[in-house]
């Protein structure tokens, strides 16, 4: 009995971690290639959730899947606007200046979302096939969590293939270490930057759209995610997608098991885990691109 609880708790934790990974993957990708600390990533995530809500409620009962498709794409488009209109002017500025700009965007988005969508609570129902739960080891695992888990794995594999198998991925990795040199070799790094930012934004939007059926969609969900996503990115090794995967899973499983053993510390778990990892491995779990 206790063992099955442990196992199911662990499994749930992994599925929680996977959702975090989808968001953090975009963040670490942007960080790794553009060297921009994009605070507005959480805002894009929030935007993804709100857009998914709007699309789904516009289309009615069959709206879920189109929403999963359209919302991230719209967020990607918004990201393109941000990159072309703003970020590309500050790439060679100090990181703190980039933080300032993206933090400014966070503030702007938080009010914009409220202006556009109002203040009421919003929520989106999972599609019928993903509602309810399956019983695993005596635990009720929501189907939707399993779906998230699968999507997380897909994203991880997709990113791996992209970064290590495609030429574009190789160019991204090259740009990550030396942008000017990529230009010198005739590749337009500014396009690479734009593409990566859009991809990262798309992932943020996807993350937002994906969690929309499990949470209440509110202004403020940007702030909740961004700190945890940053913890993931840093303890995984800045810019390292695999690091982000590993640390998301550790955080997810750690928090979930924490609920079992030390429930009073739930608030502190992510920070506690992050602090312990950083003290043991001062430059993150896996190799950083820095």
């Amino acid at each position, binding site marked *: 009995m206790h063992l099955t609880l442990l196992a199911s708790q662990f499994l749930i934790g992994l599925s929680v971690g996977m959702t975090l990974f989808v968001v953090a993957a975009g963040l670490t990708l942007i960080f790794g290639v553009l060297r921009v600390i994009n605070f507005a990533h959480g805002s894009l995530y929030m935007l993804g959730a709100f857009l998914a809500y709007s699309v789904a409620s516009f289309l009615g009962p069959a709206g879920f899947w189109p929403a999963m498709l359209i919302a991230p794409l719209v967020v990607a488009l918004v990201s393109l606007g941000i990159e072309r209109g703003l970020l590309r002017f500050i790439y060679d500025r100090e990181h703190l200046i980039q933080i300032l700009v993206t933090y400014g965007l966070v503030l702007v988005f938080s009010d914009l979302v409220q202006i556009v969508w109002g203040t009421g609570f919003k929520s989106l129902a999972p599609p019928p096939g993903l509602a309810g739960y399956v019983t695993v080891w005596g635990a009720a695992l929501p189907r939707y969590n399993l779906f998230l888990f699968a999507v997380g794995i897909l994203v991880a594999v997709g990113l791996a293939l992209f970064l290590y198998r495609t030429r574009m991925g190789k160019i991204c990795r090259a740009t990550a270490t030396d942008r000017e040199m990529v230009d010198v070799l*005739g590749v337009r790094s500014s396009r690479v930057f734009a593409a990566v930012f859009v991809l990262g934004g798309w992932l943020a939007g996807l993350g937002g759209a994906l969690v929309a059926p499990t949470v209440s969609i509110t202004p403020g969900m940007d702030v909740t995610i961004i700190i945890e996503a940053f913890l993931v990115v840093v303890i995984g090794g800045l810019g390292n997608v695999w690091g982000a995967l590993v640390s998301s899973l550790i955080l997810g499983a750690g928090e979930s098991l924490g609920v079992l053993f030390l429930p009073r510390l739930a608030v502190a778990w992510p920070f506690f885990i992050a602090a312990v990892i950083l003290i043991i491995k001062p430059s993150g779990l896996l190799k950083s691109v820095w």
Partner: protein
Amino acid sequence: MLAVEEIHSYYGLSHVLFGVSLSVGEGGITCLLGRNGAGKTTVLRSVAGLTRVRSGRVVFRGETITNTPVHRLVRLGISFVPDNRRIFPDLTVQDNLAVAWAGRPPGAAWTIPMVYGLFPALAPLAGRPGGCLSGGEQQMLSIARALLGSPRLLILDEPTEGLAPLVVRELEDQIRRLKDMGVNILMAEQNLKTALRLSDYCYVLDRGRVRCHGTVAELGRDPEIRTRYLSV
């Protein structure tokens, strides 16, 4: 084929080049000499589009290319090998070349097998991350990448810096071979022996200005130049 006309360049507020003019003719190796901080790197970077030229012109094959975006220069036939080589450390040798291949201009003549042919030492290293190469290997890779742009003008910034003598020798041979293949070369070089052995024409820079220029033999006639810049 390349004419630099009275360029002035700055780093931030500091004025570094004061009206530098030079030209590179067809079919030779042109060398920039001068003490540290004379502005050699800055001249090369200005030509390669990496440092903004505030005034003056750079003309390449009849076309004004002042401050053209870097990636477009590759399309026009200018490739640049920077002084610190700038290999992508996480990418393998093969992938380093693949990135350059992605940036090649349409109709480029050089292929990856061809550059392996020129630098046979690189072939067995194809799968090794660039960051693990020795200095000499990195230099070869850096030139190999640049060649994939099929340049008409290859710009080399201190190609032999920090290389062991044996490697310097090999590199010289390869540069000479490139020249024979019709690649024009503009380079900065502090290793005088190498510079004197390779160059057809020299410019001596001093504090951001061209001090004098000529063939090695011509320059050697001025005793002051000879002792200050050419004596070994």
